């Protein structure tokens, strides 16, 4: 950690910068959202490629920008490979389940587990694809490590996270980041992750508790209700509430308590999410190292590099301000409210048009109504995620990049090429299992 302090003190210059104009990003994501609708989602490969090109190209490290060299056709190809891989598994399981009765049911349960494994496997391979399509100063990044090991590790850790209601989350993140960063290379410069799960745990413990307590209160209140008695008296008309009260005394009080504590949970999540986001980001950046002793030893063979010995390792630190992340989220909420208002006005006029031009009860009217409902839902969901991308995702990327200081940038110029471009299969698997990401 001594290096980190020296580095921060020395790192007056900004080593990492984000220079992308926000307007360009808006254009990409809004256009992409519209095309996703028109093409029923098939445009997603092109959208992902455009977004990555923009983010990579506009992120400068030590004066040189990153470059995303992947193409949409590669993603499409990976997707088709993945279908060819996953489809037979689906079909085989369907047939065995039909054919084998109880044993088949057991198999179908284990197929869910297989899919969970496969998704983590895909995530790791997809990261490999993205890294090998990341070019910086004429060299590519690459990723070593066995994807099957990673998926076992990931399922184990995420399993604990779910079982402990999030208690194990910091340790999961730390363990998985260690795995990923240890296998991340820029040319022959190896990465490492030194962030400690305990550090994250200590910083996030109160937030976790603040959300968990009202959530548990909700669960307890719901469990305390005698549901079978309530359901038994539910059918039939008349005084339903009175019968429920008789069957399960204090029912209304318990439901009221559950609703209130659930609302408190949601409010706390909304309030704490930006702080959590910023905190995890800072922790993550501060844990990243590039260049290990092996890399230093390798540099030693050349006299010119002897001077860099002490700084053979690149230590990143981040000064991402929680306040800025809050502002990004507030901006998102502002845009969202405006969007909803516009959408509601649109639906209102749509209904007027519908009432004026179509007779009620006809098949066509019904069809148009359904199309309008679905369309509104799709526009809303796409708009929601597009606005989030355009405000929060971009802002956090920009703020994080601009907040990073590197202890020493000189090793960046001394790296040798290593690693080959990998197949886009993993992206395809992640896509088929609906896990695609930037």
């Amino acid at each position, binding site marked *: 950690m001594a290096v980190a302090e020296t580095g921060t003190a020395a790192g007056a210059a900004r080593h990492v910068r984000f*220079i*992308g*104009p926000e307007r*360009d990003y808006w254009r990409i994501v809004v256009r992409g959202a519209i*095309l*996703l609708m*028109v*093409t*029923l*989602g*098939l*445009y*997603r490969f*092109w959208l992902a490629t455009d977004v990555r*090109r923009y983010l990579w*190209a*506009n992120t*400068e490290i030590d004066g*040189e*920008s990153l*470059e*995303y*060299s992947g193409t*949409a056709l590669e993603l499409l190809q990976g*997707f088709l490979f993945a*279908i060819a891989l*996953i*489809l037979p598994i689906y079909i085989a399981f*369907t047939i065995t389940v*039909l*054919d084998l009765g109880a044993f088949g049911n057991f198999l179908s349960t284990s197929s869910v587990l297989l899919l969970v494994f496969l998704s983590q496997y895909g995530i790791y391979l997809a990261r490999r694809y993205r890294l090998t399509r990341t*070019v*910086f*100063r*004429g*060299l*590519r990044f690459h990723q070593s490590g066995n994807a099957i090991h990673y998926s076992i590790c990931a399922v184990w850790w995420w399993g604990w996270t779910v079982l402990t209601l999030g208690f194990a989350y910091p340790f999961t993140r730390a363990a998985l980041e260690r795995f990923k960063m240890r296998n991340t290379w*820029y*040319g022959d410069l190896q990465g490492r992750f030194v962030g400690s799960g305990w550090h994250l745990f200590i910083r996030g413990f109160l937030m976790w508790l603040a959300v968990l307590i009202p959530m548990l209160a909700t669960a307890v209140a719901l469990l305390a209700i005698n549901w079978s008695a309530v359901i038994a008296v539910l059918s039939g008309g008349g005084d339903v509430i009175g019968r429920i009260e008789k069957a399960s005394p204090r029912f209304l009080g318990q439901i009221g308590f559950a609703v209130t504590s659930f609302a408190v949970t949601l409010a706390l999540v909304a309030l704490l999410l930006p702080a959590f986001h910023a905190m995890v980001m800072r922790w993550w950046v501060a844990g990243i190292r590039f260049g290990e002793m092996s890399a230093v030893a390798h540099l030693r063979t050349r006299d010119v590099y002897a001077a860099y010995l002490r700084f053979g390792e690149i230590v990143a630190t981040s000064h991402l301000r929680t306040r800025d992340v809050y502002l990004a989220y507030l901006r998102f909420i502002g845009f969202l409210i405006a969007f909803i208002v516009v959408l509601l006005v649109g639906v209102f006029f749509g209904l007027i048009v519908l009432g004026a031009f179509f007779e009620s*009860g006809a*098949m066509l009217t*019904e*069809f148009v109504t*359904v199309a309008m409902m*679905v369309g509104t*839902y*799709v*526009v*809303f*969901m*796409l708009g*929601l*995620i597009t606005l989030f991308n355009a405000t929060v995702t971009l802002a956090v990327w920009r703020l994080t990049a601009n907040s990073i200081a590197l202890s020493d940038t000189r090793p960046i*110029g*001394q*790296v*040798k*090429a290593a690693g080959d471009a990998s197949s886009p299969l993993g992206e395809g698997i992640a*896509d088929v299992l*609906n896990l695609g990401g930037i």
Partner: protein
Amino acid sequence: MTDPVAVGLKSEAVYFDGVTSARHDVMLELNNYAVVIFDKTGELIDQWPYQRLKHLSAPAHLFRIGLRKSESLARLDIADQDMAHAIDLACPDIDRTGASARKAGRRVIGLSFLAAASLFAVAVYGLPAIVDRLAPLVPQGIERRLGNAADIQVRAMLDKGPPEQPFECGEAAVEQAGHAAFEKLMSRLQAAAELRLPLRAAVVRRNEANAIALPGGHIYVFKGLIDQAETVDEVAGVIAHELGHVANRDGTRAILQGTGLSLIFGILLGDFVGGGAVVLASESLLRSAYSRGAETRADDYAVRVMRTAGGDPRALGTFLARIAGKSRSGSIFMDHPGTGDRVARIDAIAPPQIAGATLLDAAEWRALKRICAGYR
């Protein structure tokens, strides 16, 4: 090369050789066929022919090029706008304005729109055609197994009576005569239908006026149906309709069609955000449409069987109209056509009743009415 090359143009640039990450400040000079790269001392580093250049992703202020069909990731970053423009003109494949990229983009959009449209066409027309050919190929054994699995679930869902009361009617002493009548009715219908697979039909204690058919030949006639029927031919018409589902293997078809639909919409089209709603809506609309088709075919089948068996082919329509009311049109979300449409179709294809023809005599019909009388 359409444009003359600005031969002799020079500018500074940054060169990465693809072997190390070292940054090289270089001088570029254009000649007739290539970009020539010199280091600061004037030493030649490399020559990149215009034909092999490719334009790479870079921030707006930089023009970045590399070599096509090359394993090397060597790059030139050119900040000088004149040089960028000259190379752009010299190289047929480079287009900084993005016009050709936009053209390619439009093609992609057009093609994926077509792909989405053709997937829809496959779901609407192709899938039923495939299922028509596939369903007869599913072995009886598998269909029976499917039926048994469905049977367990259906019984669990429908059998809500007290445990000591059997779900199926016809076992108690007062029910025996009714059971015999039911068996006789079934055998007459089955003979008329010429079905080759073994049927397992039963009257069950449910008060709705309904009947269901499962894959593999399970048919459940609900007690409510017999209660509300005024003639035996009305009951027979409904049973013949269910026989139609069995003969057309509609249960197996529904499973195959459901699998096909979820493959097309779930996997191929992917789950862009909100797309789930499109998928759900399209699936349920198409499912209902398939189902309406199956119901119409089963009605036609029922009319044929009733004619062959010597019953009243229009009784099914009469009964439907009485229990469901005669609302003319259906809904795109309904899995049955509108009752009015069904009755009209049945009346159109069925000849008027042959006088006096009926499938059971009056005594048998009275017995059948009491097939569930054992437990009240």
